[in-house]
């Protein structure tokens, strides 16, 4: 006799020992199911919480995974470095147009939103947004505006020429042209004093650098120590002046005459 057959016979014989057909088992099953269904409809809130922590197997894993996901997302959007990272990622998908920008003051943090028109941006700040009527050439590419909780407003209007994609402050593309910034925050004004009309303004040059990181991220190098022995990647001009409590800043690659003409046309 083969072992297989012997096993089958022995198991069949052994299995016959148990008594089958006891009605008590089904009665117990039925009453337990009824009790559980009744309990389910009457479970108080505290018991639900208790049950939540005594979940078994797959359900426990699912609940645990959900809680972890919620925690991670919450952390992502509450911790500043992670928040910045998350916002940058979302921006890269084109789902969020809000960026975070820190001002000079220690408490000023302004969230800038992108707008399609000056009129829309005006609703975000308390001071009037005045724009130049004269531009050598080019068009508005970006308008961003926002205000902090303490009432400090910030407007950033970027222009580019007809061919280029870049702007003066973002400088990630070719042909950077001009950026106008307006803020009612007290900005430090430095540079060579010049006058146009009755207005005193300050002219200065700004070197900008692109390190190895900047080639891939399109961001200026932030660590100043790296710049000590590095020749600047380019030079821009800056014209700053203050009028009616608003600081105007023009940054771009225009020469002084063109920059002053633009400034004079801001009414």
């Amino acid at each position, binding site marked *: 006799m083969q072992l297989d057959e012997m096993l089958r016979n022995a198991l069949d014989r052994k299995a016959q*020992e148990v008594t089958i057909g006891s009605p008590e088992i089904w009665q117990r099953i039925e009453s337990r*199911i009824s009790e559980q269904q009744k309990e389910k409809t009457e479970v108080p809130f505290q018991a639900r919480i208790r049950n939540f922590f005594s979940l078994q197997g797959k359900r426990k894993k699912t609940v645990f995974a959900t809680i972890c996901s919620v925690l991670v997302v919450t952390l992502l959007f509450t911790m500043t470095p992670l928040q910045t990272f998350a916002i940058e990622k979302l921006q890269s998908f084109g789902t969020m147009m809000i960026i975070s920008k820190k001002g000079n003051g220690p408490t000023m943090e302004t969230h800038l939103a992108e707008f399609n028109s000056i009129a829309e941006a005006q609703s975000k700040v308390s001071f009037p947004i005045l724009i130049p009527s004269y531009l050598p050439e080019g068009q508005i590419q970006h308008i961003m505006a926002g205000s902090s909780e303490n009432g400090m407003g910030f407007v950033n209007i970027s222009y580019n020429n007809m061919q280029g994609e870049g702007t003066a402050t973002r400088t990630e593309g070719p042909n950077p042209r001009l950026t106008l910034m307006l803020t009612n925050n007290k900005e430090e004004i430095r540079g060579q004093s010049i006058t146009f009309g009755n207005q005193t303004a300050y002219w200065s040059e700004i070197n900008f650098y692109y390190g190895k990181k900047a080639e891939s991220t399109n961001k200026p190098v932030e660590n100043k120590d790296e710049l000590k022995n590095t020749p600047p990647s380019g030079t821009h001009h800056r014209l700053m002046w203050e009028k009616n409590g608003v600081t105007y800043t023009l940054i771009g690659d225009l020469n002084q005459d063109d920059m002053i003409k633009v400034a004079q046309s801001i009414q």
Partner: protein
Amino acid sequence: MEADIDLIQRCQQGDKHAFEDLYKSCQAKALRTVYLITKQPALSEEIVQESFIQCYHELRSLRKPETFQTWFYRILVRMSWRLMKRERKLPSIPFDPFGGNKQEPVAHDDVDSIIEQKQMNQTVYQALDQLNEHLRTTVILHYFNDLSLKEIAEVLHCPEGTVKSRLHSAKKQLAAELAKHSQISFFNHESKKISIQNEKEFDVNAT
């Protein structure tokens, strides 16, 4: 344990009468399987009871009613192992060579052969008793429940190769135990033959 698909679908819709029918059609095989695994009649009833309650609550999550058999065996086996662990004891029930409760009358000429058969069953079952929980369950599912290797793999949630390996190992141990317990040279011969045969099968499966 072949259950009607229509019956299972009715159970999934919450039909209690259908569930009672399902219980009636499956309980005998379920109870016997659990008894073979646990070797304790009272505990077997408790396991079957708990398994059917779990089955009632989770049946709606079963996407393919045709896989009910393996799905239910999985509940049954896991429940058996869990409650056996809780009991923390596995008393071996002495095998009654003269059978269970019901003795059928037999012809006088058959008595010798019946006693011989029962002694053999006793020896085989004692050898089976020496196997560990996983090996014994695999042997029971294969030889008592007639599940294929693939089905056992689904029940035990392990690769098919593991099931093959467990069966091979179990048969090898059983053959050795039988050879040890029996003075009959038949077993030695059979053990050797089975061992060689299993090794060949295992090699073929492994390749």
